[in-house]
């Protein structure tokens, strides 16, 4: 990036940080990391309060700022063993991988669907967590921060168990079924907890809405009602289908139950000393805010519309590479070709400059 572009972006970021809304419980017990080219170039920073953190961001504005999910007795101490770990938020990182610089943005809708299931079905319904903060990651996905006190002491292995659960690792839905001696097929009931209940509910829903997707025998209302009445009691035998056949036909359902886009590569959830982007800070690679999404707003949230730093100003840029057309700031922009010179709304211009697809004029 041109030094001039860099300076201009940092100035805008600094102005944003003057009033940015941060919600960092236990701020003084957390380690902070900042970066300019790479995401984390310096870590082990710590701040006594929000005011000094904000002061730092406005005076030494970085491109990236993260905080530890962990709470420490001595957050600034090195090496890490001397920090005295006291607990850590339980975090999940959802993201998408796609070809090309702009490929992921078209797929963010899918990640959002996963996010909603993760938060509602797993984190709240199954795990019973309270105090859950959801934020856009600022680029290709979402972060979920669980700050529920009961979960803070969990160790790495215990967190891994939760990841396995969410991702369905080791799930074998055939184990849900057993043959009783009366030659009955016993299976999960819709009112059961965990994957069993989820499986039963999904099967009932599928047979109700698209009976033939499972078998033609269910297209007859009477067969279907008879069968589903049994399932409610955990009896899956009220059908003319062979048991093995029935269970086999339901196998595609099992694959739809877990949440696929949880990022486990970097061990985000089980790493007890992980640094994660500060919610409501700016992601320097996009100029987008890692925006906190209020509960109940997830449905309506569109990152490329709602995570921009608002401004009514316009800025002139020249494109240095081709860019496909995108939904950005609530309108369709582009496509642009190399050499195009445009005057754009400031948030849109900032996005393309941060992505290094354009340079300021």
């Amino acid at each position, binding site marked *: 990036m041109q030094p001039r572009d860099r300076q201009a972006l940092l100035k805008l970021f600094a102005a944003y940080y003057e009033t940015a809304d941060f919600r960092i419980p236990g701020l003084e017990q957390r380690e902070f990391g900042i970066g300019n080219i790479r995401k984390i170039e310096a870590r082990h920073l710590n701040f006594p309060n929000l005011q000094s953190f904000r002061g730092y961001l406005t005076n030494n504005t970085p491109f990236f700022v993260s905080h530890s999910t962990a709470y420490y007795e001595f957050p600034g101490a090195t090496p890490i063993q001397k920090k005295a770990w006291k607990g850590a938020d339980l975090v999940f990182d959802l993201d998408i991988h796609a070809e090309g610089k702009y490929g992921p943005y078209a797929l963010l809708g899918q990640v959002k669907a996963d996010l909603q299931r993760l938060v509602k079905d797993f984190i709240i319904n199954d795990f019973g967590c309270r105090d859950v903060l959801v934020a856009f990651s600022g680029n290709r996905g979402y972060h979920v921060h669980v700050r529920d006190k009961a979960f803070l002491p*969990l160790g790495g292995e215990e967190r891994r168990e939760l990841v*396995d659960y969410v991702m369905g690792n080791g799930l074998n839905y055939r184990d849900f079924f057993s043959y009783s001696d009366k030659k009955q097929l016993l299976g999960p009931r819709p009112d059961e907890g965990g994957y*069993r209940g989820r499986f039963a509910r999904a099967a009932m829903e599928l047979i109700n809405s698209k009976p033939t997707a499972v078998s033609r025998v269910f297209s007859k209302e009477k067969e279907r009602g008879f069968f589903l009445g049994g399932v409610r009691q955990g009896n899956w035998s009220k059908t003319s289908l062979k048991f093995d056949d029935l269970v086999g036909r339901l196998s595609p359902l099992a694959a739809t139950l877990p949440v696929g886009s949880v990022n486990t590569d970097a061990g985000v959830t089980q790493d007890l000393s992980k640094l994660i982007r500060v919610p409501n800070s700016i992601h320097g690679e996009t100029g987008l805010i890692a925006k906190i999404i209020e509960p109940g707003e997830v449905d309506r949230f569109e990152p490329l519309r709602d995570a921009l730093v608002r401004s009514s100003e316009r800025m002139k840029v020249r494109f240095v590479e081709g860019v496909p057309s995108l939904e950005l700031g609530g309108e369709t922009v582009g496509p642009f070709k190399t050499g195009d010179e445009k005057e754009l709304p400031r948030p849109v211009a900032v996005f393309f400059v941060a992505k290094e697809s354009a340079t300021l004029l």
Partner: protein
Amino acid sequence: MDEGLDFAVKYPFSDSARKSLGDIQLTERIVELAVERIRKAVRGDDSARVVFHESDKREEIASFAAARMILGHLRNSYLTNRFAINESKIVRGRINKEDERTVDAVAAQFGIASAVENGMMLLDLPTYLRYSVRDPHYKLINRKLFSGRVEINAEEKKRLVEEAVKKHIERIPTVKDPPDIIKNAGKQLVAEIPKTEVRMTVKAGDHPPCVMRLLESLKNHENLPHHARWFLAAYTLAIGMGEDDIVKLFAGAPDFSEKITRYQVSHIKKKGYSVPSCATVMSYGLCCAVCRIGSPINWHTLEKGRKDAINAEADNAAKG
């Protein structure tokens, strides 16, 4: 709550036990009992000692505390793990005979507080995660969860208590400068440790992370769950280790029996069981990295750089 002296004798880690000790003095008799208590663990004798007189009872409780002092001073993982396993088995034997109220009183020492609702016994999720064993039966994915609570049954609760006792004892605080009688008792015990060293020398990267972790556990004389032993035996057979060497490998396990191990290893060999896939290892709760190789046996086809990268990542995740 004070559950009385008999409860304290049976459950010497309880608050009642601590209270009943008061300011009791460490005597030679108590240390002697403590040494015997640890020796019993080394022999794998998990029969419960029964005492009748009040003063004997107090000594019995104190012997547990003294044993912990000795182990906290020695910091010998073999003795500590043996002791943890044996004491937790003794406790298990005892709670098997108790009524539900007493089981709950023991469980409460570790914050295990189950509640019965709509005919289901429920335990809060964080506590469940802390004390459930690495075994497919206890894997969360196979459990019924209701907004932060896991359904368990009375048997499983006892198993969780057993694990909690074990974990509690494993985390013995370091005792820096104990009285001489404790130091001497420690010396004596160390001299008696059977000399079975783990023969296999492994370098980081020789085996996939899941296998390395199991070998590490054996080296530290930690107990491996059944599935873990089975997996390790199948794996070592597949990479061409001889049966004798494999048996020696397991000698580090705190409840090692040469006869049973030999039988099991040759059984796996005879049946020609293959190494379980990563998905299966994961369902055992033993996978600890993201190798993307399908089966642990494929580790040997990876380039060194890739191996190092995977290990670095796994280390990072395990830290803390």
